[in-house]
């Protein structure tokens, strides 16, 4: 699985998680809010009756509810909810009346089994300064005054809230199941989406590898025939020019085919990276000076990496060479070895717009204004080398400074 596919899958599952969580939060939130509204309606009905429904033997008296219901006095939810004729029978509640100072208490009604009357008085005495709300989890209370008496009505909504809690738990389990199913679905979809991209990438690499191979024999023949001509007629400007151009092409072909050195068969040894980078900067010191580029280097001594020495030698040379070609007035190099990882930064002023610049790692791509012709292969080699070492390479422009950042 490639990096892009992994990213796609992680982002997609994150989006699914956020959407599902929002959806379920809204459903559960609305459900709970409606339950609270129902409870408030009931406590209000009790408040209007001084804390107790009128009870009588036999069938419930529907008329005591009908007049207060919205519309034509129809039951809102049939046998359920605050408008239900069964409410009188099914509601678990109690009301305690307190003197205005709160020093005397009297139980007005008591239709609940989970608490004793003494407990109810003690409990409600702590709610006198409140208005309405939830207490002890599933009890809804309302505090109201009437003729100098403070009433506290408490109703038990545990049975009504149970479905809400069940929905909450089912929602959470459902979300986990949906995320697992989504992950496998994304796995299948991701493969379908990325298979053509991977194939295109594979074909591009194959094309470059084939083109690289196809160049090699013709270049050998051109150089060989030029050599034959020189041996027969002696060297002249034309044959020397042909040798030079062939040498350039050979170098290009070698750089293009550099992927071959990452086949795992190269020497992997401790490479003194600090020395390599310092040496690469020293080699180009004259070029930097000739071009008026001010160079700063902050290189921690003794930093090593386990890698192919030739590849690391070339990596440092490519980073420094890139600065020689593209820096306008200044270039800087940083090397740090911390906590088992190595950080390399190569920066130069480039006159480019700010933003990510990872396309600089693409083959045959030149982002900056080179002072000489450039094949656009140097940083692609850097990226390939870093990738082979399981490191990360990124490029960006900030404040007009082009920076290549490598973590190994």
């Amino acid at each position: 699985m490639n990096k892009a596919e992994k990213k796609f899958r992680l982002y997609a599952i994150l989006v699914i998680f956020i959407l599902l969580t929002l959806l379920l939060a809204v459903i559960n939130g609305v459900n709970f809010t409606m339950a609270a509204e129902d409870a408030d309606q009931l406590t209000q009905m009790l408040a209007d009756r001084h804390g107790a429904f009128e009870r009588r033997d036999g069938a419930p008296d529907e008329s005591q509810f009908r007049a207060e219901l919205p519309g034509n006095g129809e039951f809102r939810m049939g046998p359920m909810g605050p408008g239900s004729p069964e409410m009188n029978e099914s509601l678990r509640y109690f009301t305690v009346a307190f003197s205005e100072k709160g020093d005397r208490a009297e139980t007005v009604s008591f239709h609940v089994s989970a608490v004793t009357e003494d407990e109810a008085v003690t409990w409600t005495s702590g709610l006198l300064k409140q208005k309405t709300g939830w207490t002890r989890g599933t009890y809804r209370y309302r505090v109201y005054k009437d003729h100098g008496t403070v009433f506290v009505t408490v109703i038990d909504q545990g049975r009504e809230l149970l479905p809400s809690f069940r929905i909450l738990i089912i929602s959470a389990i459902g979300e986990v199941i949906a995320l697992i199913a989504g992950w496998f679905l994304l796995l299948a979809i991701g493969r379908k989406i990325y298979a053509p991209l991977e194939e295109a990438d594979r074909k591009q690499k194959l094309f470059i590898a084939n083109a690289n191979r196809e160049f090699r024999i013709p270049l050998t023949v051109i150089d060989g025939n030029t050599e034959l001509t020189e041996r027969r007629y002696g060297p002249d400007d034309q044959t020397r020019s042909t040798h030079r151009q062939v040498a350039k092409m050979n170098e290009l072909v070698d750089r293009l085919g550099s992927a071959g050195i990452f086949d795992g068969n190269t020497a992997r040894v401790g490479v003194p990276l600090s020395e390599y980078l310092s040496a690469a900067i020293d080699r180009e010191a004259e070029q930097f000076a000739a071009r008026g580029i001010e160079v700063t280097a902050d290189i921690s001594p003794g930093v090593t990496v386990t890698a192919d020495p030739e590849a690391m030698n070339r990596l440092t040379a490519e980073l420094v060479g890139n600065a020689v070609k593209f820096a306008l007035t200044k270039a800087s190099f940083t090397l740090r070895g911390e906590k088992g990882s190595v950080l390399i930064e190569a920066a130069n002023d480039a006159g480019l717009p700010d933003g990510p610049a990872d396309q600089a790692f693409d083959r045959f791509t030149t982002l900056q204004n080179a002072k000489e012709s450039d094949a656009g292969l140097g940083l692609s080699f850097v990226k390939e080398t870093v990738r082979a070492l399981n490191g990360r390479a990124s490029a960006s422009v900030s404040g007009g400074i082009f920076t290549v950042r490598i973590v190994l």
Partner: protein
Amino acid sequence: MKILFAAPDRDLLECFRKLLETDLGETVTAFDGTQVLTLLASESVDAVILDRDLPRVDHRTLVSKIRGKNIPVVVLTDGPVTAAMLTGEPTANEYLSYPFDANKLSGVIKNVLETASSCETFRVGAGGPVITRSRIESGPGLTAGEIRVLRSLANGEAVSSDDGAYITSLNAKFAACGSKTRIRYRAKKGFETVTEDE
């Protein structure tokens, strides 16, 4: 000296036939594996240069047959020379990547001819282990490049990291024959041989 040069590109064959005849001696050419086998049966040659992608007969079969006749063989490859090539069997006496020039090819042939008959013993490192060619050749054999690297190490000469494939293949061959000798890179010293206990 007589050289057999086999490659699928006729321009390449013709060009290098002329160059090699000037530099080394008589050169016969073949453009597929069947022709190579026919020429090997009918002609007496001192060395063979063989393209890795020669048609009709697989290059490994050809290398095996050529080395069976005790004739040194150089394999030309259009990719980089890798340790996998150097440690695989049958191994040619040397591998050379396209593109190359006449001087380089002639130099490789001379080196191969010289090392093929060599029976030298290498002491790698001052007081270090002695490696005989036969001890290492119990496996797939040593290429001319590997011998060159061993010679440089034994003589205390610098070995270039360009020879990474040879270094890796030598380490693999050391391990295969039970030797504790390894080639390692040391800061400021370059490549050198060490025993694993060091």
